[in-house]
């Protein structure tokens, strides 16, 4: 299954280009920079989940010594709702302008209502307290069921669903065949409803930025994000400064997972800097991150699956309600579009509903929506397999999507690797191993699969040969998972030189061409395409230069091992010309050597994974622990296996947190009650086992190196795999996440009620 190659660098565990800076403390993240004359910005946030803003009086704050500027929604460019959508990628600027600063209404506790810049952070905080906001407090709802009640407070009065004002702000469906007919053919039908809680992306680096606006309007933004071009465009939209005047410099990013694909602080800091004439730094506290950024949706899903006695799924129906938070835009596309995709189901209806409620606007989180949907679908499939007395992996194999299967969301699959992931899971040492004795604790094993679309899209790269014959590659994507290491491997491979001679950097918005977000598992896929084409152009130039020197035809020159050689003895007898020699001769032979390529990349194939999870449940304490985990994934081609494994392992860890502990807890007043790492408990080192990875390599035929996106798939199956393992251990099934100790104890102590239901 693995590729037979004679590659020197592709597939090697090289040292990442940014590694040295990160292990020595040199790397500059968003909050690590200062500018001369810098002052500090702070945000005043709504304490209410839902309130009309009657007026804001900033006069007292403005008079406080040390305060240099105050901004409110009046300073932000408005995108009137009635004028229709103004889209930037998947974000509608009508919602973005209201999310960065509340206009007529505050829609969640933590919603910004004003911002202040002052000479110290303490003065800025003090000034925020002096701003007087007259709120008309309104009824609110947070949970999906509450937001859908007939008398629920409506967040956006203009929005209608079924002709009535509603918090349902969007619906989509994917359909194939006829489910009514399909369910009639079924020998067994199982329908279940599941809920999940909102969970945060949990990046350790809070949002931060440092922004200078010169008197001529030239703006410099230093911030960490999943897209410096997104930062530039959104800031331009919301401040009115043209994009050509905004240089957005990408700092190292301390984790994003989708949560840094939109802006929060940059437009505010830009306006504060413009008003004050001073560079403004803003850094969120952890509490602000938890209250006002991300998280992903809480959800309510109903999944019905019908199968015949011989194990064929004949029909399935999924209904996925996802919390959008304050503004439209929950990831229903991922939930409805991915959840059934590993399977060839003739009759399918998959529906998503986007539901607004009074909590922070969702931000993307690793395969947005897909893990939520997969949790429901993969748990029901486990039940169906059990009812049919089939091994859960055999059941999946029997129904697996393959080359030629038409997915409900549209595409007919090319050669895909789903079947291979199930087969590899089945033949893994893990699946063959006995569960072992839990010494009083109950053990169980679960499996689950998952799919994510993966994205292509716009990328730019510039590859330059330095005067001493080395290489600098500039790309436009913030590196959140090791993409620079992958690009160095590829460029070195193509040029036939040591990877350490290739320096890969992330350009700012004014030095490299437009490159879309780091998201959708697209970065290595897309940027290696533009880097490959750039490098090929350079190799062509190098061959031409050698041909000129040798006075032969360029076609008679080949590039090999970092040097030009005569392609055959017929071409003549010449000593090879190395990259260094050709670089040295460049001024006399036609000038600098470099090439840039910009593409809207196509051909990103979706990715599939299958996971095996063992748990051990302490029935006295209700603590479920994952004791063994194997993640199998079709990774296309592992350009840098260490960082591909890293994606799998990191995704699994996040999923285990989502399954077992993480959740937003709200007070009776509608505020997040656990806005810190102590009470919002992400997995710590002692919670987890080693996470084994099996990388199946089915190369993507539409990519020069066979790359498929790998970053998001590994989160998709995890909650279901853990839930199925806990069911196997306890013989009782949870239909809600997280399966945290109090909930496990509750279930174990209520056996009769469970049976009665």
């Amino acid at each position: 299954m693995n590729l037979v190659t004679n590659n020197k660098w592709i597939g090697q565990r090289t040292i990442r280009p940014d590694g040295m800076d990160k292990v020595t403390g040199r790397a500059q993240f968003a909050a690590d920079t200062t500018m001369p004359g810098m002052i500090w910005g702070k945000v005043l946030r709504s304490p209410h989940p839902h309130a009309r803003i009657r007026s804001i009086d900033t006069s007292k704050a403005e008079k406080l010594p040390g305060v240099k500027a105050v901004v409110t929604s009046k300073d932000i460019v408005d995108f009137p709702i009635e004028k229709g959508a103004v889209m930037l990628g998947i974000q509608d600027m009508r919602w973005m302008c209201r999310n960065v600063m509340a206009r007529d209404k505050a829609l969640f506790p933590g919603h910004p209502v004003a911002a202040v810049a002052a000479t110290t952070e303490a003065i800025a905080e003090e000034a925020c307290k002096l701003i007087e906001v007259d709120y008309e407090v309104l009824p609110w709802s947070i949970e999906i069921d509450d937001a859908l009640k007939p008398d629920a407070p409506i967040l956006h009065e203009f929005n209608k669903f079924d002709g009535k004002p509603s918090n349902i702000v969007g619906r989509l469906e994917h359909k194939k065949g006829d489910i009514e007919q399909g369910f009639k053919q079924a020998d067994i039908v199982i329908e279940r409803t599941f809920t999940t809680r909102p969970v945060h992306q949990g990046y350790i680096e809070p949002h931060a930025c440092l922004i200078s606006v010169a008197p001529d309007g030239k703006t410099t933004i230093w911030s960490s994000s999943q897209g410096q071009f997104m930062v530039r465009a959104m800031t331009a939209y919301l401040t009115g400064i043209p994009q050509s005047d905004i240089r957005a410099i990408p700092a190292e990013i301390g984790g994003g997972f989708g949560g840094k694909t939109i802006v929060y602080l940059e437009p505010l800091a830009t306006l504060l800097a413009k008003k004050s004439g001073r560079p403004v730094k803003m850094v969120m506290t952890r509490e602000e991150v938890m209250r006002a950024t991300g998280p992903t949706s809480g959800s309510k899903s109903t999944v019905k699956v019908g199968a015949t006695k011989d194990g064929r799924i004949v029909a399935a129906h999924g209904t996925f309600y996802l919390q959008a938070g304050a503004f439209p835009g929950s990831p229903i596309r991922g939930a409805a579009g991915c959840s059934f995709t590993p399977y060839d189901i003739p009759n399918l209806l998959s529906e998503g509903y986007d539901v607004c409620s009074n909590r922070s606007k969702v931000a993307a989180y690793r395969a947005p929506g897909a893990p939520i949907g997969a949790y429901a679908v993969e748990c029901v499939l486990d039940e169906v397999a059990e009812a049919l007395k089939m091994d859960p992996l055999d059941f999946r194999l029997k129904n697996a999507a393959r080359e030629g299967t038409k997915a409900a969301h549209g595409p007919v699959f090319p050669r895909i690797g789903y079947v291979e992931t199930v087969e590899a899971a089945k033949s893994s040492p893990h699946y063959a191993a006995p569960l072992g004795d839990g010494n009083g604790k109950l053990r169980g094993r679960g499996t689950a699969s998952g799919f994510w679309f993966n994205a292509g899209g716009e990328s730019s790269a510039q590859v330059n040969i330095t005067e001493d014959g080395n290489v600098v590659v500039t790309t436009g994507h913030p590196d959140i998972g090791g993409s620079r290491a992958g690009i160095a491997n590829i460029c070195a491979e193509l040029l036939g030189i040591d990877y350490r001679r290739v320096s890969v950097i992330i350009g700012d918005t004014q030095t490299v061409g437009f490159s879309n977000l780091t998201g959708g598992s697209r970065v290595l896929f897309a940027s290696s395409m533009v880097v490959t084409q750039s490098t090929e152009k350079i190799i062509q130039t190098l061959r031409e230069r050698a041909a000129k020197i040798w006075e032969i035809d360029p076609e008679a020159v080949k590039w090999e091992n970092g040097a030009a050689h005569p392609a055959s003895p017929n071409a003549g007898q010449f000593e090879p010309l190395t990259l260094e020699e050709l670089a040295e001769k460049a001024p006399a032979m036609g000038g600098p050597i470099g090439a840039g390529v910009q593409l809207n990349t196509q051909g990103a194939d979706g990715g599939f994974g299958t996971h095996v999870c063992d748990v051990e449940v302490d029935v006295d304490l209700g603590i479920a622990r994952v004791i063994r985990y194997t993640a199998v994934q079709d990774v296309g081609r592992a350009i840098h296996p260490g960082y591909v494994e890293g994606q799998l392992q990191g995704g699994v860890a996040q999923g285990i947190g989502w399954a077992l502990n993480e959740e937003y807890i709200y007070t009776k007043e509608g505020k997040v009650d656990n806005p810190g790492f102590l009470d919002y408990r992400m997995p710590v080192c002692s919670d987890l086992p080693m996470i084994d990875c099996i990388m199946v390599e089915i190369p993507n035929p539409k990519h020069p190196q066979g790359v498929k996106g790998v970053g998001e798939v590994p989160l998709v199956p995890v909650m279901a795999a853990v839930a199925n393992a806990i069911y196997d251990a306890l013989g009782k099934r949870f239909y809600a996440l997280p399966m945290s100790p109090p909930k496990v104890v509750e279930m174990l102590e209520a056996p009769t009620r469970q049976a009665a239901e």
Partner: protein
Amino acid sequence: MAKVHVTTSINGEPMEFLCEPSDTMLDALRGPLALTGSKEGCASGDCGACSITIDDRLVCSCLMLAVESEGHEIRTIEGLAQGEKLHPLQQKFLEMAALQCGICTSGMLVASDALLRKNPDPTEEEVRFWLAGNLCRCTGYDKIVRAVMETAQELQNQEMRAH
């Protein structure tokens, strides 16, 4: 209120700085001392990204007042390498891909170094519990734990060869 003058030692160098009485050690490191390798992820002692040692004791610098460094020896990530020579843990983290975004890496390395000084031959469980105060959201900890254990093994082997 007037600022407080503090005399301390940072990474083996005598150092003086001025701070507010309420400033944390992390504020002082990232502010007047310009040592931004220590990161602020939470300011509540839960993430460990600001881990430093004071007289060889591992602490979260966000939970320590800057004035408490008076007369003590502080070590930070910036002092882990000896000039151009990386600490074996730093080298191993690079070789074994034990970092992704890097925001936790400073704290992880400082904490791991503190562990190996105390316990040169830790079990996997000991590594996992020692590092339980250092959050990493990218790696799932797998490669970090392996890198620490392999470094310990190598240092042990070197020690044995030396005797």
